């Protein structure tokens, strides 16, 4: 933009206009001593003034630097938001850890999300309300299968939380049997009965728990044949 006009010294005028949808306002001040001097424009903008008489207003450059600064402020705002949300998440996490004792991490988080998406996918029951939640066959190492369980009601949660917590089988068993002599390897459901796996977890029934040495295996088979869960019949009627 070029400007050529004659004005009295030490006076100023204002020019406004729109360029590329941006509102631009330039204040011109005449710089001179004699009344015949051709006025050199000095540009003022919002950020200050330049007093160099030979300086011409670089309007397009000014617009670019405006763009740069607005971009910078947007980036700053994004950065602020990120920092703020990190602080919020960190605070909530720190508050929740003593409340629930354990929060899902790494692959366990995936399991938790997986469970939320499809609550009916309870793969195999573990007893005591816990269950395995398979994320896919062949992907996991030994004892890394995720186990989901509901914590007991505690001081903060009068009822058991709806969403089960999940962790690896190894950690779960270590916690459950932490009072036992270590190291020990527990393999839950080394064999799983075909009949009782059809039933719901923790259904109201009575199991027999027993200890057996390898020399008494045949006695165990006999006991299993005798008791047989629901199909236990007698020749004599039972007293009511």
């Amino acid at each position: 933009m070029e400007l050529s006009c004659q004005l009295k010294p030490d006076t100023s005028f204002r020019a406004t206009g729109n360029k590329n949808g941006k509102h631009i306002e330039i204040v011109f001040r005449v710089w001179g001593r004699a009344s015949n001097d051709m006025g050199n424009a000095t540009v003022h903008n919002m950020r200050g003034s330049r007093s160099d008489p030979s300086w011409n207003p670089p309007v397009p450059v000014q617009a670019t630097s405006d763009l740069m600064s607005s971009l910078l402020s947007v980036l700053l705002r994004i950065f602020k938001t990120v920092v703020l949300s990190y602080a919020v998440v960190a605070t909530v996490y720190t508050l929740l850890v003593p409340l629930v004792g354990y929060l899902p991490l790494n692959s366990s988080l995936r399991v938790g999300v997986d469970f939320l998406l499809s609550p009916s996918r309870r793969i195999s029951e573990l007893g005591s309300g816990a269950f395995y939640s398979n994320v896919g066959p062949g992907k996991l190492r030994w004892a890394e299968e995720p186990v989901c369980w509901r914590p007991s009601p505690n001081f903060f949660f009068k009822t058991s939380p709806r969403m089960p917590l999940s962790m690896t089988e190894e950690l779960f068993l270590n916690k459950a049997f932490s009072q036992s002599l270590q190291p020990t390897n527990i393999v839950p459901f080394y064999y799983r009965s075909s009949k009782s796996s059809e039933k719901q977890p923790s259904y109201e029934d009575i199991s027999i728990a027993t200890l057996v040495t390898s020399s008494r295996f045949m006695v165990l088979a006999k006991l299993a044949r005798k008791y047989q869960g629901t199909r236990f019949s007698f020749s004599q009627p039972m007293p009511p």
Partner: protein
Amino acid sequence: MAIHISNTPKEQRDAVLRQLHNLYTTSPAMSTWVDVHLVLDDFDRQFNMWRNVARFFARTEFVTMLDVDFAVCTDFRNRVLRSPAIIDKLRHGDAALVIPAFEFVDQQDGQDADIFPMTKEVGIDSSYFDLLTIGLNRS
């Protein structure tokens, strides 16, 4: 059911596991009704821990602790489940039932579990057995 198998020596461990596999696969009652949990370590006589493993993984609400050599002669399971008085106590969570056990006065009488008496009257009147928990000496 929890089975403890000593980790060492390895040959013995593998032999017991093979034995267990044979038992489980050849006995239909086992594969139909019995869950097996393994405890593999080097510690003997951790009875409470083994019981806790069996109890912890039991998939039913209630668990009976039973010596494997006991013969279940009566249908105590249905007796408990169908009695509102008993099952309510159990549901309440602070009651445990003690099931009386009997043993034969003469060990030779107890060879065949299929002909065991099913009522206390029949057993005690005919001097077949005594209350194991009392250890009454009738002779």
